[in-house]
């Protein structure tokens, strides 16, 4: 009851309509089984995490290593299962841990882009096959796959001819853009970017960030951007959620959180970051 009241309030505040994504009460515990040499160990990756994403907004999930931000991304996209909690996208229930509902990743309408340009594309596959893989799994025909793949490539600033080439023929920034094309060709409503520019050279990061802004503007996607880089948050994201040790410690509009952080952890994080 109170949850839906909250949602209504935030909608009215920003006038955005139904939420692209709503997650509440997410918890994930990793158990390392005991053996002859080790006791059993439990790591609490996420503890009662909630967040919401408005349509076409870019939400940052900020945290250091061990904060649970990567686990959160993997749970939302469907690579991991939450132990408790619920996730909804618009009117559809994606996850309801208590009722054991976990919609398979391919049916969630959520795409993902990864951190490492050297590991996110199969080196033995042509770009057309890499981008078209999801469409093939969904049953699309060859001709249609080609057309959609070419369209996705041009949206990220690459050319149709590049469909015939292999990943090693591209630079890191270009490979990240190919990864973006692969995700958007399936027309997701939400895109999750897990440290998408952290492994790129600084002079190239901006290109990829601008591509993300482009596709947000053109396709109206919502983006969840997982990062530890405050400059990127400042540039790209509308709102921020700060995670520490699996819990949300602060959330709000980017400007407010960065300029006037309330929580001591956020304050410490921001003061450690050197910005010019």
């Amino acid at each position, binding site marked *: 009851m109170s949850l839906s009241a909250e949602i209504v309030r935030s909608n009215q505040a920003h006038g955005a309509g139904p939420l692209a994504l709503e997650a509440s009460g997410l918890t994930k515990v990793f158990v390392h089984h005991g053996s002859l040499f080790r006791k059993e160990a439990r790591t609490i990756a996420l503890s009662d995490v909630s967040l919401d994403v408005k349509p076409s907004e870019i939400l940052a999930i900020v945290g*250091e*290593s061990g904060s649970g931000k990567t686990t959160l991304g993997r749970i939302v996209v469907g690579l991991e299962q939450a132990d408790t909690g619920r996730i909804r996208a618009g009117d559809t229930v994606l996850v309801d841990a208590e009722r054991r509902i976990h919609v398979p990743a391919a049916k969630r309408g959520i795409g993902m882009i990864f951190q490492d340009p050297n590991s996110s594309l199969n080196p033995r596959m042509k770009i057309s096959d890499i981008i078209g893989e999801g469409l093939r799994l969904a049953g699309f025909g060859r001709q249609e796959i080609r057309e959609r793949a070419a369209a996705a490539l041009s949206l990220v600033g690459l050319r149709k001819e590049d469909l015939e080439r292999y990943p090693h023929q591209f*630079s*890191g*920034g*270009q490979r990240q853009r190919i990864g973006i094309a692969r995700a958007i060709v399936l027309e997701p409503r939400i895109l999750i970017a897990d440290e998408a520019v952290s492994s790129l*050279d*600084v*002079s*190239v*990061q*901006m*290109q990829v*960030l*601008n591509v993300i*802004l482009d596709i947000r503007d053109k396709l109206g996607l919502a983006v969840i951007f997982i990062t*530890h*880089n*405050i*400059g*990127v948050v*400042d*540039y*790209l994201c509308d709102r921020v959620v700060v995670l520490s040790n699996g819990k949300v410690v602060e959330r709000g509009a*980017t*400007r407010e959180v*960065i300029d006037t952080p309330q929580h001591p952890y956020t304050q*410490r*994080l921001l003061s*450690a*970051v*050197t*910005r*010019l």
Partner: protein
Amino acid sequence: MSNSSDIVLEAKNLSLFLRLGGKDLKVVDNVSFRVARGEFFALVGESGSGKTMIARAIMRLIPPSRLRIEGSLTVAGVDVAQAKEDVVRRLRGKAMSMIFQEPMTSLNPIMTVEEQIAEAISTHQNLSTAERRAKITQLLTDVRFADPGKVAGQYPHELSGGMRQRVMIAMALANDPALLIADEPTTALDATIQQSILDILRSLQERKNVSVFFISHDLALVNRYANRIGVLYGGVLMEDGAADDVIRRPAHPYTDALLSCMPRARLFGQRQAGIEGNVPRVDNWFEGCRFAPRCAKSGEKCSLGPIGVAPISQTQSARCLYPLR
């Protein structure tokens, strides 16, 4: 002009070539710089810039069979480019030492902290057990461990990343070197830990008059701590100057472009321009200025041949035909 005894590290027309069975690949192109005693010099570059190769070449970590050195690379008066292996070995740990990016792989997992630092000490010094223990405690206190006694008895896997890096620094300083080479020591660490490590380095630099040669890809990070900054791109030292000058009044278009493409808040939803194009791959270097294809200020002359050094001031210089100052 500084006295030659003040210069701890000097590279003159240094070029490095990787010997790759048949061909030699040039990875560093005619680089010259000098680091004075007690100075914090940051060498900043992106991938393919050659910065890691320079760091490894100073300590001669890559044998001559795999790395060809042209020009001179002098540490404490010894040219490591020409010197014999046993001469260089005596320098390592004593005149110069190094800390690396991955502390987990640099520490021996089956030795305690105390044993590892002791090993570093006994390579160059002959101390009694009591003296050694005192020295180890002092070193651990210097790197800001609140309980040196406890840490000394621990194994690397019991320590966090930041703590392991501090142990590495303690080991590196065990024999009071004049030069500490730091190869991206904080890249794998969280922002809050990064800052504490750099604070430690800076304080050690000041108290012990150690020169720090810091390799990084992060201009913003080194800005707070470096006295001088060198900017490397495509194997060439594009700009070299006092930190304040390089950051606030850059002379080379690349430095300027690099600074302006660091993401910051968008005013009125405007876009920030990145730098068009890609960093030149090491196996694909061309003649002339390697930044020219991406440079807003480049002209025809930039592609003709190697660019000479244009002195901007007493403390700043840039390899550019059209410097910004």
